[in-house]
């Protein structure tokens, strides 16, 4: 077993799911036997019918022993066990993670403000506790005093500590995480047993799993098919008696089990659990299965520009000289002005000067005095020993500085600045002042850099029929330029939280489902309104409460993966249902001639597989029926492979594989099993 920690990626970079772990059948079989309790099986009507059939056939095998009777009874039990094992395997995958989490919860004590010690389990919302370096935070809450670095790896798997401080959007702390430095006072916000960790444990264990709406609808269809086939077989006996071909009860039970959709019935719950698990593997906690299904249906994705579509920071993309300066001179000055600038923008200027203009970094500039950025000056730069002063900064600030020193501004500066703004960039003015006056040297073009591969992702989404909308505080013009570069369908520029909420409501009134990410308290209303609201784990408690999923990596790009997981869940269900129903044809061709060819020899023409004997035919069908469940467990857990494509392309592919395959495969499988089974004495 892997532990929760090493299953987790250690960086917040786009997560790769861990390679599908090998299935541990041992513990699963133990779980499968425990699940034989009929009270639990009633929830899965198809499996329950097989269970009843197993009980009956066992009784028949005892009262009227025969090799055939015992083999049928045995394989029927194996069918039930396979179904149970599938569920147990799926549940087992979350167990280890739950155990680690539980440990974090149990070892916690809390210290109140007056220094008294209480068990974490006795904490109530509103109580304030003190947590100092080295201690585990006893429960979910808000930092009301102090600032601390916190190790949240127990929850997120991310080893780098995060800062938590009172006030603002970084005040939420989670029970079970460890304070690494300093001291904070936390106001508890959750009841015991309902903390984030508690909910996580319940989720990864599948204990609190509520069946999702679509799963319920499918279960109804499967139940109805089960009833139909029960009626078919129950009424078949009178018809058989009339025809002088009365059937043994064992044969009829075998027929029912083969006809009812056992494959999907057995795997349905495992598929659901595995779908949730796939999210957990990507460090996403869905607070309800409903949200996972809704993710597959999403029509509109609201994506924050920064961090999702573009890299977090703007980068220098070109130097534009003004007046009679050359680009090289501007590059040189820009590099000098940025040498000590540790901001990402500053570093990107140095990088650009080096890569584009071949200017090597100069580490030591004796006598130079660096001028850091301040909120007052809104500029930064350097004072060189030769008396030259270089400054770079926002256009307005630099122009004011030049003018204050009596310098002139070439008229083209305005055009260049406007041009860069129009293209979605940010212009930084570069100016110098020396004994002979101040002047503007040129403009640095800072640009939002669209993350690599995003344009392809958005093209995929468009093929899947999903519209993307970029949310940004930038003005409309800037936003449009970035959207065009990234291949985004629409933008919401200068967005306020109210605008976001209104946009979601507008989309929803047209019947569309909306997904979004958010982290701030002011995102909470929109997160709550969205059909799929993914809160960042770094976000506020309000945001986490409002959303129906939490991304522990706080990676907004993951929304796209969540949509894919939702789709994959539904595709797996649909494909296995199709497969299961398509299987019936071959089973009819195996069992019907076996039942009736004795009385109507002509019906042997239906025995297209040329199965060796009636007993062998029936047994082979039952064996195939049980084995196919086991064979499909890995697929149910992994999910049917999902490739972004249009609905009709996807339907064509899945119908060919699971529909046509579902018709053909059992003919081959039953024949092969028959070749083996017919070797058993008493069967051939």
């Amino acid at each position, binding site marked *: 077993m892997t532990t929760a920690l090493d299953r987790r990626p250690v960086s917040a970079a786009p997560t790769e799911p861990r390679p599908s772990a090998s299935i541990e059948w041992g513990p699963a079989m133990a779980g499968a036997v425990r699940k034989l309790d009929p009270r639990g099986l009633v929830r899965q009507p198809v499996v329950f019918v097989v269970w009843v059939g197993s009980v009956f056939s066992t009784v028949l095998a005892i009262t009227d022993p025969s090799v055939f009777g015992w083999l049928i009874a045995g394989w029927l039990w194996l069918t039930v066990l396979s179904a149970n094992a599938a569920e147990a395997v799926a549940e087992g995958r979350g167990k280890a993670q739950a155990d680690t989490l539980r440990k974090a919860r149990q070892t916690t004590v809390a210290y109140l403000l007056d220094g008294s010690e209480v068990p974490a389990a006795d904490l109530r919302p509103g109580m304030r506790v003190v947590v100092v370096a080295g201690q585990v935070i006893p429960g979910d809450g808000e930092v009301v005093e102090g600032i601390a670095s916190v190790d949240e790896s127990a929850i997120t798997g991310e080893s780098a500590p995060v800062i938590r401080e009172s006030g603002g959007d970084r005040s939420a702390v989670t029970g079970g995480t460890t304070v690494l430095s300093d001291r904070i006072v936390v106001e508890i916000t959750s009841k015991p047993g309902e903390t984030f960790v508690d909910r996580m444990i319940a989720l990864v264990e599948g204990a609190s799993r509520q069946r999702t709406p679509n799963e319920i609808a499918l279960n109804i269809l499967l139940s109805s098919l089960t009833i139909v086939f029960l009626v078919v077989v129950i009424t078949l006996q009178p018809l058989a008696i009339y025809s002088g071909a009365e059937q043994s009860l064992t044969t009829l039970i075998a027929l029912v089990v083969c006809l009812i959709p056992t494959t999907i019935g057995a795997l349905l719950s495992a598929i659901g659990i595995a779908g949730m698990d796939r999210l957990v593997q990507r460090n996403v906690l869905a607070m309800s299965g409903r949200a996972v299904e809704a993710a597959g249906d999403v029509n509109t994705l609201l994506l924050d520009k920064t961090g999702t579509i573009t890299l977090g920071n703007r980068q220098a993309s070109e130097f534009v000289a003004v007046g009679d300066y050359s680009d090289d001179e501007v590059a040189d000055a820009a590099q000098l002005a940025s040498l000590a600038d540790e901001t990402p923008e500053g570093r990107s200027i140095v990088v650009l000067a080096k890569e584009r203009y071949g200017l090597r970094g100069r580490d030591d500039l004796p006598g130079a005095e660096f001028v850091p950025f301040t909120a007052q000056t809104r500029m930064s730069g350097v004072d060189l020993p030769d008396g030259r002063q270089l400054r770079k900064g926002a256009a307005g600030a630099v122009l004011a500085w030049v003018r204050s020193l009596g310098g002139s501004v070439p008229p083209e500066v305005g055009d260049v600045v406007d041009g860069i703004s129009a293209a979605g960039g940010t212009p930084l003015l570069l100016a110098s002042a020396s004994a002979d006056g101040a002047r503007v040297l040129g403009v640095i073009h800072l640009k939002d850099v669209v993350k690599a591969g995003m344009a392809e992702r958005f093209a995929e989404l468009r093929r899947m029929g999903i519209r993307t909308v970029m949310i940004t505080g930038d003005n409309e013009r800037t936003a449009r330029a970035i959207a065009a570069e990234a291949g985004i369908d629409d933008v919401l520029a200068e967005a306020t939280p109210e605008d976001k909420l209104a946009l979601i409501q507008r989309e929803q009134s047209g019947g569309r489902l909306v997904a979004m990410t958010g982290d701030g308290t002011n995102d909470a209303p929109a997160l709550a309104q969205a059909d799929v609201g993914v809160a960042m784990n770094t976000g506020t408690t309000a945001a986490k409460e409002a959303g129906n999923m939490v991304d522990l990596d706080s990676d907004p790009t993951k929304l796209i993966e969540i949509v894919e997981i939702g789709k994959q869940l539904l595709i797996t269900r649909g494909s296995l249902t199709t497969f299961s129903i398509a299987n019936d044809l071959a089973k009819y061709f195996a069992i019907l001639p076996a039942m009736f060819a004795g009385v109507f020899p002509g019906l042997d023409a239906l025995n297209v597989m040329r199965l060796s004997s009636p007993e062998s035919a029936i047994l082979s069908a039952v064996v195939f029926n049980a084995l196919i469940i086991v064979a499909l467990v890995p697929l149910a857990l992994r999910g049917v492979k999902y490739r972004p494509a249009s*609905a009709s392309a996807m339907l064509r592919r899945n119908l060919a594989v699971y529909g046509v395959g579902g018709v053909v495969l059992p003919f081959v499988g039953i024949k092969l099993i028959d070749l083996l089974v017919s070797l058993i004495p008493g069967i051939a």
Partner: protein
Amino acid sequence: MSAAAAGWLQAGLLVLALALVHRPLGDWMARAFTTDPAEGPKSRFWPQGHWRVERLVYRAVGVDADAEQRWPTYLRSVLAFSLVSVLFLYGLQRLQSLLPLDNGMAGVEPGSAWNTAVSFVTNTNWQGYSGESTMGHLVQMAGLAVQNFVSAAVGIAVAVALVRGFARSGTDRLGNFWVDVTRAITRVLLPLATVAAVVLVLGGVVQNLSSGTEATTLAGATQFLPGGPVASQEAIKELGTNGGGFYNANSAHPFEGPSAWVSLFQVFLLLVIPFSLPRTFGRMVGDRRQGLAIVGVMAGLATASLALTNWAQARAGGAALQLAGAATEGQEVRFGGPLSALFGTATTLTSTGAVNSMHDSYTPTGGLLVMANMMLGEVAPGGVGSGLYGMLVLAVVAVFVAGLMVGRTPEYLGKKLGRREMTLASLYVLVTPVLVLTGTAVAVTTDTGLGSLLNSGSHGLSEVLYAFTSASNNNGSAFAGLSANTPFYNTALGLAMAFGRFLPMVLVVALAGRLAAQGRAPVTAGTLPTHQPLFVGLLGAVVLVVVGLTYFPALALGPLAEALA
């Protein structure tokens, strides 16, 4: 011209005629049933107001024709109207000797009267009695012929309600049952039936009020030639996919089916409304391609069935039959085997049940096919109205499974298929197989059920299976060979007809209510397209696999055992 060539020519002619007529007729019906000003194209023809004659009806019945109904009210209207119809028809038969125009017939005995009343109200028109020797003209005209109109109209109304469920969104109103039924009669059935009756009279179908004529044949024997208002009843019998013949021999009687072209015309009549309704559906939901897809599935299944039946009949065993070109026993030998196959296929694929040949005498494979036609749930194209709503419910099931395979919560025409929708659709699929198989099982385990069998072995089983299939699917055709006018069969088949008609209707109207209340999800590239050939094939497969496979074991012991013997 060989019989086979003539057969293909007839089928081709039929397809051509249906292709020509289904568009204007479908559009006309769409316009007739578009009652909400918010729906349909914006033109001065849509929606249409009430006609004067319709206002008279509404006033007489006492309904507010402009008030739309919620689904429970709509459903109550359907059921109440049908119940009253059953009681009226029962009374009329029982008391016919006391009423005028009784032609000297006695009151019908209770079992048969119940069976016949249910039979005609459910659009089944199973006839356990012999028409010309049981029913007087008054019952034929005021009872049976009237039900031929209204039972068909009820079917159309329920189908229209379901279509509105798809077409509307965010409303709890499904339209007004009384308006729908009235318009189905005044604007669709009555005008078409009038034209059809005139054509039939021109073709030689009798139409009079005589009690019959005594004639002396050339050989000197006396023969009684029963007359009556045959053509008028014949027209609606086919048009409303009713099937209850004036004569016991039904359309095989020379007064009902005097010539080959009249027989072919009858086939056209019984197919024309069911094949036009998908167009109506497409128009009303605002996407004609959706209607085209539905009609495509219907036509595909029908063509396959017809081809198979012709093949089965033509390869009949035995030197004599091969010399004759095909099986001839029980066929309409005047017009050739293929027209019998065409008639038999059309009548069982719709819920008509009229026959111009005896299905009992088909080759075993041929008999299996006409039975399988009904077992598919009569959706290709099915009865007037019932065929469309049956196919739409199966489309819901197909969309549900296929929709999952494209990774979305399934939606059909923008309507999400959730728990409630699937419960109703699943129950719908459940009803008929349970009725057919339970009925058959009971019949072959009871002495009274077995007592009516004229044949033993597989063929006997086929006869019982056919009877319950026919009744539960509201077809009404008989395999013959079964003396069904017994208390057991009158009661059991009557129950099968009633449940087979009204349980599905309950589910369909409830489904319509659920759908209408929903909003509409927009169509995107991620939406399962339900108008493409791929979906047409898929829906066809669902009909065959989900519905058809249910009957495989029963068929294996009946016609299949016989065919492979």
